[in-house]
């Protein structure tokens, strides 16, 4: 085993890092169920985010379940001079494609359909890889985590779009757009996946390395 590129890691050196302010502290010995606070900013110090695997799994599974009604149920009703039409997230994208707006359609498709699913699948892969202690592509997996954390907010696009549409197209019998139940599921998926990304602790990707190489 070559130690040439072995780097020191805080926890292995007996140090706790505050994720809020970056203060590094040495803790005497941390028994189960006890807690310390960061001396600089008073945030709770944990070696790793508590129960991270269970909590992230719970959020990810909830996200998968809600993803189905979010795509099945209509998100809005459009009433235009007499005829009313229900629109789902997917039919909104199809409509943009049909009227020839490929770029915008693709953008909405990515933000509303691909991104939430990609986040869920990405987090699932990360969770499984951490639980199985995979030793490969740690750098890429950390990068995947950062992408997941970064793009999540753009899924709010459809929620904002609906809030603008229902506010502007409100002309009584002539033309009205009303929100529908699908939007509740969709908004929940967006928020739950954002929380799931926040709960996940990427340091666990790097944690099992020494024991794995030693065996």
């Amino acid at each position, binding site marked *: 085993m070559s130690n040439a590129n072995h780097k*020191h*890691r*805080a926890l292995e*050196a007996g*140090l*706790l*890092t505050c994720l*809020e*302010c*970056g*203060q*590094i*502290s*040495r803790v*005497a010995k*941390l*028994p189960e*169920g*006890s*807690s*310390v606070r960061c*001396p*600089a*900013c*008073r*945030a709770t*110090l944990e070696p790793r985010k508590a129960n991270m695997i269970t909590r992230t799994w719970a959020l990810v599974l909830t996200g998968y379940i809600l993803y189905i009604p979010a795509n099945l149920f209509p998100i809005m009703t459009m009433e235009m001079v007499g005829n009313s039409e229900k629109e789902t997230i997917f039919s909104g994208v199809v409509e*943009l494609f049909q*009227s020839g707006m490929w770029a915008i359609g693709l*953008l*909405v498709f990515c933000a509303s359909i691909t991104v939430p699913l990609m986040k869920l699948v990405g987090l699932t892969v990360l969770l499984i890889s951490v639980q199985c202690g995979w030793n490969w592509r*740690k750098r890429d997996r*950390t990068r995947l985590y950062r992408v997941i954390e970064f793009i999540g*907010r*753009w899924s*709010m*696009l459809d*929620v*904002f*779009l*609906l*809030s*603008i549409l*229902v*506010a*502007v*197209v*409100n002309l009584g019998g*002539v*033309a009205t757009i009303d*929100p529908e139940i699908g*939007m*509740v599921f969709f*908004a929940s998926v967006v*928020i739950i996946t*954002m929380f799931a990304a926040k709960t996940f602790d*990427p*340091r666990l*990707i*790097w944690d099992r390395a020494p024991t794995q190489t030693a065996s």
Partner: protein
Amino acid sequence: MPKDAMAQKRGGWIACPDCDTLHQCGPVKAPHDVKCANCGRTLFTRTENPLDRPLAFALAGLVLFIPANLYPIVTFSFHGVKTDNVLVTGVYRLAEGGFPGVGLLVLLASVLFPALYLMGMTYVLLCSRLRQYPGDFALTLRMTQGLNRWGMIDVYLLACLISFIKLGQLATVLPGPGLYCLGGVLVCTLLASLGFDPDLLWRRFGARSDKAGSWNLLKPKAS
């Protein structure tokens, strides 16, 4: 040289929040991105004028925030009937339509969080500039760091753009003055957050003031 300027010059130890690798980094000359050698995460960005520049942009953003909320964002006319909306009209309509939760989410992400982000930034930068640290400084800085992702004016503006295209086929849609102000808020927020350096603020506050190798020993308390 004042004490906090010393802390600024001396790099000290940093642990990467993504992979826990310890780095000892010396003095950094602005502008400079410091990245984790192990996983590539940006640990902090040292900028020029780290206090005044973000402060100026945050204040400008806060001023623009007022007209952005008061003036209509999108004006829609259809067969001679005209409607327009301000930022919170959508929130009101969503709540009225039976979805107060979604309305609240829109309110938080498009109005409250961006405003709190700018206010928090102004507050911590002013404190740090005056070297006065009230009891809630650390809490405010933590909140400001956390709100960065949750204020979504950029996403909101993209949604405005798409609504123009979507509604443009049905009727005449025009941007209102509120939209331009909101664009201004977005530019100010982006420029402010680009220059905002929480690492430096924590250092000036006194966090990470450890000398290499001798960290303060904490005694755990039973909870």
